[in-house]
């Protein structure tokens, strides 16, 4: 158990834990949340068990509003289906919920995220003769097209944040302001938020470019610049990410990811 954490004590939790907790804070109670597996599912489960008990999770393989007890390892994991309000089809979720415009917040991930919030999960290198072939879109392109807010949780490494993606699997602001509208997308100015172990960045709807809005405790802007392939702007109200509450940490460690499969632990645990 961790008690009375303060800024100076942040050695007692890991920034990977705070990354999840900060991401979970972006989910509002009642939100319809389009979620896959891995860290997004961890953050969603945490939000559900803490401040957002009425969030409605939708999972692309078919479950609508399941009650997630233990973090599933796959969208086809039975753990992602329990006590759903509806077990349906991919068309129902990606078509009749997501493309229909009912998703408040969707998670995506990828190997590359560029300055405009575009995401690559398809290839490193050339499409026709790739250096590394990645899984591909899955539902990510659909989420990036249709969710009003996008949330990306990712470990902060420079190669993940190039100026320009090798391949745009999932559209952010494409090549800049107005590009989404010109392309024909329905959500014109999505809020794209990246939560890493260093920083929280959010796209500016006017420029389409990332701005740093929050820094993780103990992290300064130079650390961000040094680990990012583009130069993000800085919000006028730059804040520090609030430390985790006892409840957040406990819930994460003891209920959401009890075996520590997903999240590195702080020292005090």
């Amino acid at each position, binding site marked *: 158990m961790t008690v009375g954490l303060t800024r100076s004590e942040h050695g007692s939790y890991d920034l990977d834990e705070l990354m999840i907790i900060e991401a979970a804070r972006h989910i509002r109670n009642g939100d319809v949340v389009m979620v896959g597996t891995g860290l997004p599912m961890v953050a969603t489960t945490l939000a559900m068990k803490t401040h957002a008990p009425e969030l409605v999770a939708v999972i692309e393989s078919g479950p609508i509003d399941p009650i997630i007890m233990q973090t599933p390892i*796959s969208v086809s994991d*039975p753990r992602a289906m329990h006590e759903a309000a509806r*077990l349906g089809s*991919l068309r129902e979720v990606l078509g009749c919920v997501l*493309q229909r415009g009912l998703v408040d917040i969707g998670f995506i991930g990828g190997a590359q995220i560029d300055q405009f919030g575009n995401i690559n999960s398809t290839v490193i290198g050339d499409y026709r003769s790739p250096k590394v072939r990645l899984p591909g879109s899955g539902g990510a*392109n659909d989420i990036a097209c249709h969710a009003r807010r996008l949330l990306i949780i990712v470990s902060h490494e420079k190669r993940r944040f190039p100026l320009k993606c090798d391949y745009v*699997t999932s559209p952010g602001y494409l090549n800049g302001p107005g590009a989404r509208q010109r*392309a024909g997308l329905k959500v014109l100015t999505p809020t794209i938020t990246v939560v890493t172990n260093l920083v929280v960045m959010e796209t500016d709807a006017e420029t389409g470019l990332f701005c740093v809005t929050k820094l993780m405790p103990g992290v300064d802007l130079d650390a961000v610049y040094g680990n990012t392939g583009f130069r993000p702007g800085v919000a006028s109200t730059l804040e520090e990410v609030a430390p985790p509450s006892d409840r957040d940490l406990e819930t994460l460690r003891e209920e959401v990811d009890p075996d520590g499969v997903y999240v590195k632990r702080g020292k005090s645990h």
Partner: protein
Amino acid sequence: MGLREAVGRFVFDGAVVGLGGQNIGRCAMATVHEIIRQGKRDLTLVGCNLSISMDLLVGADLVRRCEGGSGNLERFGSTFCWRRKVQSGEIEMEDFSHLGMVSRFLAGEMGLPFMPTKSLLGSDILVHKAPSTVKKYEIIENPWNPGEAVVLLPALNPDVSIIHVQKSDSMGNVIIGGFTTHEPEMVRASRNTIVTCEEIIESRQIRSDPERTTLPHIYISAVVHQPWGAHPTSTYRYYDFDAEHLRFYQECARAGGEQVKAYLDRFVFGSESFQDYLEKVGGKERLLQLEKAMKRLCASKGENP
């Protein structure tokens, strides 16, 4: 009809094969093994998430092309045979999103030549295409909102789809439990569908509760009773995925070459039937563990059996 006859009759060299299941759930592995044993080649594999069923067919050198939304086994890693052969150019992959793929099956099941979508716009999925694709998509203007672009994707009607389900009667009235992914659309779009199932139930049971039927018999060409037919992937309410065997397969697939060959020799070619394979992966004892793991998950949530 047995699986051997069903595959012999409905899967042919060069066929477009629709793959059911997703990731680690309800992949039609028994049918995949039989296709490999029969050496049906030059296949085009289609689905949303293409997973271990695809990877095994690619590993057996039977695949020319894939069309799908993704190739991976999520936490268990990439579909390594596929990744290697896409990288080397030995097979081609035509990329869509998952909604894009299910939209194509939706057009197929509705007897339509194409389906609109508002996904994909602005992305490189519309910029690049596989070498043998003639026309991947069309963009038109929305007639009710001039200036607005809409993507049209071509219908996809597989020659044969293979799915593994919980229950079917002998006519082919199918009940899928849990998520159904893209299967309802894909199956209704297909010329033929081979179903393996955990249980054959009485038609009386189907007809006493017809709202429960996921797919009526008119879409199904062959039903084969094949318990554990999705192993090592899971079948909701029946058994959990076999993490151990999945990891073992992934090691072989990642290593490639001789190790993939050895896997196939041992588990597929070396097995007369899927029953033989099940013995090799641990037999009754192992399978009951997986069954128990699933029952535990379901029981803890007070679910119906």
